[in-house]
Structures are given as C-alpha cells and as structure tokens.
C-alpha cells in the first residue's frame, strides 16, 4: 500500500493504493472523492494484483501504476468527484514500481513524467490529453525501485544499490553511482537546490547534489552527506523542505520517524 499527496493547481488530493484499488480523498481526509477498483481479470492468474506508483502530472492528471504494467491516467476536475480515466499507458510489461513528475523546469523535449518497472525499464512521457512516449530506456538487469525527475534529469534508484542519472530528452546515461550496498527503497529530491536523498536496506541515507548546466550540457552529481541509522533497513526517506535542509527517515520494525537537520 502507498499513500501520496498529489498537488494540482486547483486542489490537493490524497491518493492511496492497495491490493483492491485506488482511493482518492480530499486533502483533509474527510471525503473520498473517487474509488477505482482494480480489475482482477485483466491480470494474469496467480499473480499479485496491486497498484503502485503515484504522481500528479501536467497540472491536471494523476498517474497510478499497476502490477501488470499499465499506467492509469486519471483526469481530475478542479473540484468535485467527476474523476475519469483519461488514458491507459501500455508500455511496461512488468509491475510498475514508481512514477515521477518533473519537479523543476524541463528543457524542451524532455517530457514531464517518468515511469519505472520491476524489470528496470524507464519510460519518459509528455503529459496531455494524450500522453506521448518520448523515450524508453531499456533495463540493464536490475529492478528500478524509485525514480525522480528534475530539470530534465531522471534520477533512478535500483535494487542493486546503484543510482543512475539519465537525460530525459535523449535517454542517454549521464552518471552511474555505486551508492548503496543493498536495495534502494527511497529517493527524494529537493527542487530548489537539486539535492537528492537516497535511503536503502544497508542502513544508510545519503544526500547528493545534482547540477545541470544547460549551456555546457554538464550533468553532475556529488556526494554531500551520509547517515547510518544503525541496525535499520530504511524503507522511507523524504526531505522536509524544498531546499533539502532537513529530512525524515523510516525503517522496518521502527516505530519512530527520525528527522535530521542541517546545522
């Protein structure tokens, strides 16, 4: 199950995914705006059925991934409950792991949505009444567990502990980081500074800094900081502010949320 805030210009919705389907609530949690049941018959028999990966895109849509590969695109009205399925994106063959929308300023042709799956395939889309597939980045043999998009740069975290940066407009690999010794569970990005947060089962949380120079076409990543949460497999990590000066961390069997701040 997942929960995510989807911030659209007109409203904020809380989207929850589970094995049964997708629920959308008003931001105070008071009213369920929409319920979408997952069609079990559309999935191969004896396979787990679930929705996973949530992102608000294009100021109008909410994208949710499914366990058989298709991505559901919901058209969200300014207010009220008249949510409709605008499109089903059928490019992935494996369970969707994560979806991200552009958090900064996309350069021309870079698209504004990226979807990732269990096999490690990434798809870059341009949102709209009809989504356009701009690039498909083939898998290299490992699950892509989480993905972020910023200034036309895709940051992808993998099950083998690697972080990769791709150029969204071309699909070209621009950086490879041997970041963690175990499965990366979480990536987050602070849009005002380009700071990237990664959390993994190896107990480590790392803060990185992405930079992109559009004139020189340099894309760089540098390591800023590491924290080890002793004896904890990190399951979630999020920046608490858009500059990335503080972040929160959760882990398996942990009843607390740890918060770290820059002094």
């Amino acid at each position, binding site marked *: 199950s997942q929960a995510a805030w989807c911030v659209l210009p007109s409203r904020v919705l809380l989207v929850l995914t589970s094995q049964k389907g997708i629920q959308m609530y008003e931001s105070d949690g008071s009213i369920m705006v929409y319920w979408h049941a997952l069609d079990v018959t559309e999935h191969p028999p004896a396979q787990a059925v679930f929705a996973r990966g949530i992102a608000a895109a294009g100021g109008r849509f909410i994208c949710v991934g499914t366990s058989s590969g298709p991505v559901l695109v919901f058209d969200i009205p300014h207010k009220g409950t008249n949510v409709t399925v605008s499109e089903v994106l059928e490019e992935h063959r494996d369970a969707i792991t994560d979806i991200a929308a552009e958090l900064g300023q996309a350069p021309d042709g870079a698209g504004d949505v990226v979807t990732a799956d269990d096999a490690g395939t990434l798809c870059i889309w341009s949102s709209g009444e009809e989504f356009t597939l701009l690039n498909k980045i083939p898998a290299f043999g490992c699950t892509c567990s989480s993905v972020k998009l910023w200034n036309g740069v895709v940051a992808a975290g993998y*099950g083998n502990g690697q972080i990769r940066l791709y150029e969204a407009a071309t699909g070209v690999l621009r950086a490879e980081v041997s970041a963690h010794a175990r499965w990366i569970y979480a990536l987050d990005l602070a849009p005002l500074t380009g700071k990237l947060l990664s959390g993994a089962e190896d107990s480590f949380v790392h803060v990185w800094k992405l930079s992109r120079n559009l004139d020189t076409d340099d894309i760089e990543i540098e390591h800023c900081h590491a924290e080890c949460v002793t004896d904890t497999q990190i399951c979630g990590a999020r920046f608490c502010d858009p500059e990335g000066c503080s972040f929160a961390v959760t882990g398996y069997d942990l009843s607390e949320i740890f918060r770290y701040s820059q002094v």
Partner: protein
Amino acid sequence: VMNDIITTMFNKKFMEELFKPQELYSKKALRTVYDRLAHASIMRLNQASMDKLYDLMTMAFKYQVLLCPRPKDILLVTFNHLDAIKDFVRDSPGILNQVDETFRQLIEMYSSLSAGEFQLIRQTLLIFFQDMHIRVSIFLKDKVQNSNGRFVLPISGPVPWGTEVPGLIRMFNRNGDEVKRTEFTTDGNYVIPQREGSFDLYGDRVLKLGTNMYSVSRPVETHMSGSSKNLASHAKESIAPNPLAKEELNFLARLLGGLEIKKPGGSETGFRLNLFTTDEEEEYAALTRPEELSYKVVNIEATQEPGRRAELARILGELEVAEPRPASSGKGEDLL
C-alpha cells in the same frame, strides 16, 4: 521422530496445497499447522515448550529473511533448509525422494521470478514478522541480536551478488564517454563477493543463512521483554533439543530414558519434550507468559468463524498425523 516429521511435512498432498497461489496464512493458521507438524510423531510438547519452540522458529526465520543480501537469496535460504533436511533422511530413500520432488517444484516455480517479485515476497514475509522482538539466547550470544530484540545489521562484509562496493561516481557526456570520476567514503567496510550461490538441485549455496544453527550444541533460551526476571537470569544453560537436528538425537535418547512417559489416555504412548530445565519451570513459563505474546492456538473444533475453520480444515486435511507408536522399554535404542 525425524523421519515421521519430515514425511508428514513433505507429504505430497500437503505440498500440493502449499504450492497453490494463495495469501499468506494468518498467524493463528500458521501456528496451528506448526503444532500439528511438531506432533507428527510420538513426541509431545506442553503449551509452554511449544510456545518457546515456535518463538525460536519465528525469530530464526525472521532473521534469515531480514538479512538476505538480495531478495532472490530467500530461495537460497530455502535451499539451505532443504539441504539440511535431506541430510537428516539420507538413509531413507523414500522420504529423500519426497524432499527432492519438492526441491524440483521450488526450482521450477521460483527460479525465474524477477528481483522485484522476490522483494515483494520478502516484504510480505517481513510484514508478517513485524514488531516481533523476542530475544533468543543463541542470537544474543553470537551478537546477531541486540538486548532490545532488534537484529544487528552489519555494515561490512561482502556486498550481494550483482552489487558494487559503494563509493564510485562516474559521469558521462552526451556521447557516452566517461568525463569525470569521483569517490566518496562512508563508515561501511564492504568487499566484493567471491561467487554466487547455486540454485540447482545440488550445489554450494555460499550463503550461510538457513544452515543449521544447532550444528554445535547451544543454549536455546528465549526471553520476552517484560517476562519474569527469574527465567531470564537462570544460571543453568538449557541444552534443549531441536527436533530437526540429527546431532541432538543422542540427547533425545537420554531424555527419553529419563523422562516419565506421559500416557495421554487410552492406549497411546509417547514421550514429552520439555524445552525447559524442569517441569516446574515449564509450568511457571506457561503461567507467566505475557498476554500479548500468547499464540491463542486454534482448536479446530472450537473455532467460531466458519471461514477460518474452512481454511484450517483444508490445510490440515492434507496433513496426515502419524499414529503414535507404542514405545518399548528400550525406546531410546529404538530411535537411534
């Protein structure tokens, strides 16, 4: 005892049932299946010993699943379990065959799953074990568990197969040429693994998780937080037999010789396994077990929920419980 338990566990119908795609068992269902398996021979355990054995099994399995370096390694752990079981019955070709058959089914069904699918299985298992922190003395001694019940996660050692040692950043230009290379350091101290474990019917699994914890005689106390201090600070080591450890059969034989036979009514005879040092201790453990840790084992006839009863009946219907055999006066020798 060993043969009976393993024969029951790998019974064809039971395995067929297990291999069907299904949700994870509820905690009650799992405990009930476990109870039946543990009693699939002439061996009997009282509530307290049964609870203790189940605690041990639960925490050991949790440890193995949690520490798996890669999600696919849960399959290697399973193979380690099966390798050990095969060794226990290596002189009984009939049972050995049953185990091999299960081995083949596992290979067929699971070998081709993706890392993501294995991780989903692993996450589902970990959710089942979430918030269980029973302290196991063998783990405490080996420093794999802290005194607060949490497992130690080492930040050194070999990285999983397919992962690089953390530290390198490589940057490329548009054409794919490497233009910059930097390094970062952490407290971790990782090394490259030597080789990958084998997923074949026979082979070196490389991974140690899932191998016999009791290949050397070890104390097997479990401690629950908030439980009586008397039990926790008991000076004597309790060298309790693990029913699946062939090396412990000698101890079992001695136990049989010394224990009074419990005759549970009628003509059935058997021996009772006590995982505590004395009967009184066992009774005391039963009385003082914290409420939140009681397993509430379901008596299948007594359960109220029809759905639950049907689920259990289906599972247990596949488990044939061996009739306890009458014990002779030289029963210790018979078992060896």
